[in-house]
């Protein structure tokens, strides 16, 4: 009798634990688009006023990455990630292990670095860290460069040879992002969420073309703030 009870109990425990796995792995894939197309670095695009331009670089830091469950609780994912689209047309994959199996309403993060991290410098980090890259630190700002978006534009001569850049940084430009996802992470599975960053909107403001020039001047922070706001608005969760 006791043997039968033991077998029954262990069977119940075994099957219940198999059916209610608590965590799963998650890949969040960031994909760079221009409108409905995958963004192609070096390809000629046209602004609203017809100005021809190219995009050659697009990257950003995101801090305090977390997801919000449908019961309102948070699932923390990462302190810091750097998304550098480079030539990866398939998207940039960021992987997280042991994510709570649940329904999620949104992914949230801040574009840039949290103030305590932004108060550090590249030499504070081992060379393997993305924060050790001096190419993303600007001494004149005492800040990391949160986002780099660069390319070339037709300056009216008919050839797309003049450079433009938007580099953002400084604590006051740390910008919150909320992306509605309404997706589930299933236990014991590799799950994937895909986030599209549509670059087209970065070059339009109030229905007009954004002037493309060299923009990394902290004394002109309003222009950079508008740009990073447009980055924050550029994300959408999509199905595969």
């Amino acid at each position, binding site marked *: 009798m006791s043997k039968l009870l033991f077998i029954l109990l262990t069977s119940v425990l075994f099957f219940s634990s198999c059916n209610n796995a608590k965590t799963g792995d998650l890949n969040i894939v960031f994909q760079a688009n221009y409108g409905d197309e995958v963004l192609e670095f070096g390809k000629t695009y046209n602004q609203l006023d017809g100005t021809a331009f190219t995009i050659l670089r697009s990257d950003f830091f995101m801090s305090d990455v977390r997801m919000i469950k449908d019961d309102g609780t948070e699932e923390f994912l990462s302190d810091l990630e750097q998304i550098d689209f480079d*030539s990866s047309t398939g998207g940039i994959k960021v992987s997280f292990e042991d994510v709570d199996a649940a329904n999620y309403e949104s992914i949230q993060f801040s574009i840039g670095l949290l103030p305590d991290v932004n108060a550090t410098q590249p030499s504070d980090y081992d060379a393997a860290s993305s924060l050790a890259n001096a190419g993303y630190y600007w*001494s004149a700002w005492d800040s990391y460069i949160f986002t780099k978006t660069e390319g070339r534009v037709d300056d009216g001569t008919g050839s797309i040879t003049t450079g433009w850049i938007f580099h953002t940084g400084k604590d006051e430009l740390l910008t919150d992002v909320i992306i509605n996802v309404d997706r589930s992470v299933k236990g014991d599975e590799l799950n994937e969420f895909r986030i599209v960053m549509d670059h087209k909107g970065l070059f339009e403001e109030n229905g007009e073309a954004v002037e493309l020039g060299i923009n990394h001047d902290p004394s002109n922070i309003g222009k950079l703030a508008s740009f990073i706001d447009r980055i924050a608005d550029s994300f959408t969760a999509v199905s595969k």
Partner: protein
Amino acid sequence: MKKGLYFIVILFVAFSCREGDLVDTEYNPTPYIVEGTEYLGPFPVPPDNQLTHEGIKLGQHLFYDPILSANNSMSCASCHLPEKAFTDGNAVSVGIDGIAGIRSAMSLVNAAYFTKGLFWDGRSDNLEEQALLPVEDEIELHHNWGDVIEEFKEHPTYPQMFREAFGIEDKEEIRKELAAKALAQFQRIIISGNSKFDRVNNGIGAFNEEQFVGLETFFDVNPLIADGECGHCHNDPLFTTNQYFDNGIQDAKTLTEYTDIGLANVTNRNLDYGKMRAPTLRNIELTAPYMHDGRFQTLEEVVEHYSKGGHATPNRDPLIRELGFSEEQKTGLVAFMKALTDTSYLDNPYVRNPFK
């Protein structure tokens, strides 16, 4: 018959128990602590090639020894002279057969920090990998590692030094990979972090007026004068960002017109044509002529190039454009770059030529 059997058994035992020929040499490597990196920060060291006095000493000897070249005429130091911040003063380097290469010898100062590829085109991932290439390059040392290893084995001191550095028990265990590890260790201790720039940063002394104008231009500090945009590719503390750029020096209107495609050699990407590794500007005063092909003789010529913006090449970096420096800014930039000179690494006996 029995005697013959005994003889075979004795021979077998003798050879199977034969100890390596180097076990009498002590293997007790001493960790090496690198100094002068306070401002530069830590650098990556492979777990299987930690710095030791014995490894560095071996690397130092190999670096300065012409044994690595086919005709014993050139060593690594022939193109990387310590007094020229480990460059050679030539526009492009010339190998043992008198054949000129296509690029200038890069400085090895602070090479420990050179992540994201070595060489102008980034074709080696790390110092261990890089150290293997010049020996067999047909226009450099034009030797082959097989013969080099045989020479090491017959050398009066190298087998013991390999033993002391890496614990091999027999000279038959000498491998090119161990030589490369030693050379990498040697290069990792060539540290420069005590220039005037560093001292001023530490509160010791001050820049003169020229240097200060140069600093403001270099780092785009002063909105009232033209930005230099220098720091984007040559940011401190290393004065390189370890990235690759097309700075508009090649007169190429199309991809096919690049005479040296640089990074695209490695990546095969159209967008990488003409991109070269941004070299460190530390000790740039000592490394003329400048650019990957040594086309500029002076820093003044370099500054003039950036002031004018160079050629509108297909991949010219967006920040390279006509900047229009004032004469004061040009003089200031040169003065500031000269404030990055620091040869204190020559005080380290492990860095100097051990054969002199």
